[in-house]
């Protein structure tokens, strides 16, 4: 017990209030702006700028971060390496996704699918969504983090149902109901943590603060914390698309507008999982590393299994992408279970790479869908021959999410695999590897079917609005760049891994 993890906490060396407040404030401002301004393109640009600001803050935090976490607003906001990573993820996925919203709304308006009211709602909700996620990752208090994550459900409920129609309503209903129940379970867990903390003599007002909990983790009652941790894993796991509350995911992702799907898949799931990562060191210190490891292993492997098998019977390409997200999150959960510094760094790396890959994927899938008016795999042939950009984006995205080099997830799979074998979980790697092959087979065969081949003469042309083209090009470039080099981020991930690595 007792590692370096808790040593650095409690001392705030640099004042980074601006870097902490801005990620929340900027998207809120963008949302307000969107509520006032009627130029939807300008709104989208502002939202994208806000996302960029979030990402920039993340980068600056990464560079300027001190030894311990930075606090702001009287201890409400808190930033450490994980925060910086997640802010970078939110920014890097949020900016292209928000920007691509221009093209998406243009197409919807042109097709007469939407009303001005809905368009405005979209403009307001996207930055609000970003703000909620930014809050969730920079909250110093587990309860606030919980509330922010639950807020994402509310905000995205409308975004999921934005396209209207039976399917969208159905997806939104399931999304809200299942996620709310799941997240409520996490609240129960939070309450129990609070109970344990208060019982351990921590002052009530600070009893849910992460730093406080870490500092007193060994004093917390292990029995209660076991229950609490279990509840939080499946509760926050609901937002991360983990079993057993994974059932909303495919429906919501397949019905949401492409940019929103990208945000949900690329960031929201990761934000949900970051909550688990947040509490993991506390739980590990309190009840020992084996408990959460087992829980995350079971949940993660079950998720990978369900996702891989569902991929195998998939007939809808947006649902396919959703299940691929589930698979990735399952792998990430397993990596968290392994819990070595390398594994944690690798899983965060995977979070970032997966976010970028999924952005590219969902945006290109959205274009295919809008060209065909359907997301049935069987209806789509020869995309590559019809639109190089969309086809190449889809191919790159799939290559990213199935962990093929030169893209970044390959590296994290290797690193996690190394960690697994080093801690004696080789059998786990075997099981997971087999499931990943199943998922790979399903994705590869369907991708080949969608992208390649001779297009039918009657196949509709795939139009790509300029805004989406730009987002795709940037996305592809980012995917490649991430795969080739971590650049200045390397240290950040290493430190995040060291910080969050569990106790063995």
């Amino acid at each position, binding site marked *: 017990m007792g590692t370096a993890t808790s040593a650095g906490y409690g001392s705030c060396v640099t004042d980074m209030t601006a870097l902490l407040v801005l990620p929340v404030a900027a998207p809120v401002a963008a949302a307000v702006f969107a509520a006032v301004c009627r130029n939807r393109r300008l709104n989208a640009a502002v939202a994208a700028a806000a996302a960029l600001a979030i990402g920039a803050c993340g980068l600056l935090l990464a560079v300027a971060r001190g030894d311990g976490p930075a606090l702001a607003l009287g201890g409400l906001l808190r930033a450490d390496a994980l925060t910086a990573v997640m802010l970078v993820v939110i920014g890097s996925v949020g900016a292209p996704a928000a920007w691509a919203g221009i093209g998406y709304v243009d197409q919807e308006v042109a097709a007469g699918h939407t009303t001005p009211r809905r368009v405005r709602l979209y403009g307001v909700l996207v930055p609000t969504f970003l703000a909620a996620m930014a809050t969730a990752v920079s909250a110093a208090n587990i*309860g606030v983090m919980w509330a922010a994550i639950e807020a994402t459900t509310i905000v995205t409920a409308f975004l999921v149902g934005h396209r209207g129609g039976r399917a969208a309503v159905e997806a939104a209903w399931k999304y*809200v109901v299942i996620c709310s*129940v799941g997240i409520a379970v996490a609240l129960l867990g939070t309450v129990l943590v609070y109970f344990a903390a208060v019982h351990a003599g921590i002052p009530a007002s600070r009893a849910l603060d992460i730093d406080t909990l870490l500092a007193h983790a060994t004093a917390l009652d292990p029995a209660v914390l076991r229950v609490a941790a279990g509840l939080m894993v499946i509760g926050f796991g609901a937002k991360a698309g983990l079993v057993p509350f994974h059932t909303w995911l495919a429906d919501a992702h397949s019905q949401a507008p492409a940019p929103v799907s990208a945000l949900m898949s690329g960031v929201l799931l990761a934000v949900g999982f970051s909550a688990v990562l947040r509490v993991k060191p506390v739980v590990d210190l309190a009840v020992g590393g084996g408990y959460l490891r087992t829980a995350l292993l079971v949940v993660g492997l079950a998720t990978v299994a369900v996702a891989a098998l569902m991929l195998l019977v998939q007939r809808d390409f947006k649902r396919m992408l959703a299940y691929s997200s589930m698979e990735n999150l399952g792998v990430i959960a397993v990596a968290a279970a392994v819990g070595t510094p390398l594994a944690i760094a690798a899983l965060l790396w995977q979070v970032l790479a997966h976010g970028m890959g999924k952005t590219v994927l969902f945006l290109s899938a959205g274009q295919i869908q809008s060209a065909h008016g359907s997301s049935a795999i069987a209806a789509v042939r020869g995309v590559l021959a019809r639109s190089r950009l969309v086809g190449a984006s889809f191919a790159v995205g799939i290559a990213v999410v199935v962990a093929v080099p030169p893209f970044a997830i390959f590296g994290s799979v290797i690193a996690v695999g190394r960690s697994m074998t080093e801690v004696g979980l080789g059998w786990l790697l075997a099981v997971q590897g087999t499931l990943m092959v199943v998922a790979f087979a399903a994705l590869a065969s369907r991708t080949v079917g969608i992208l390649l081949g001779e297009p039918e003469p009657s196949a509709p042309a795939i139009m790509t609005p300029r805004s989406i083209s730009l987002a795709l090009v940037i996305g592809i470039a980012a995917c490649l760049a991430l795969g080739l080099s971590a650049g200045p981020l390397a240290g950040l991930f290493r430190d995040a891994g060291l910080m969050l690595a569990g106790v063995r």
Partner: protein
Amino acid sequence: MNQDLYTAGMNTAAGTLLLTAVLVVWRRELRAMVMLLACQGVALAALPIVDGIAHASAEVIGVGVAILALRGVVLPAVLLRLVARRGPARRGPARWVPARRESAPVVGTSLSLLITALLTVTAFAVTRPIVRLQATVGSMAVPVSFAVILIGIQVMATRRRALSQTVGFLMLDNGITSAAFLLTSGVPLVVELGASLDVLFVTLVLGLLARQVQAHFGDSDVGRLRELRD
């Protein structure tokens, strides 16, 4: 307030919580369910109020009053509007009459009650570590909260109307809040505020979606939402 009265008050409130939960399982009249939910909200609010009076804490009483307003009044009112509402004012030709009763249940009433009983027993069994840690009046009643939580999920899983599912969700939430109050005197204010706001918004969202479900499917039976699958 003396200790006996405090105990009695807490226990009564906790008992009411469970009782209303069981009654929700029993009843199939939608309006009755909402009313029972309101009762549960009142019982829930009673917990901090009793606690606050016992410990002479105005802040806790204040929280209790707020809970009362939200869970005893506002949320049931939102749901009642859903039941009472006679068709969408502006939208669409499909004028619908809101359902008054639960449609054919997924699980029969007697079986439901049996499951409820089992869940309650389970709740008592699984909360041992919590009760063991702190043997206060409140903690002793924590199994009730867990039972309400489980029953809430049960209601959601066995009822078909959008409204019933919302009721189930709110029961689940009541259970969690009650746990917070029974174990400690509630979570920190900022968390409680965030949680309550979230619940309110979720309820509103569910209400809105329920109406859209009704508009698109001609019925508020969410059991029919089965078009999205593989």
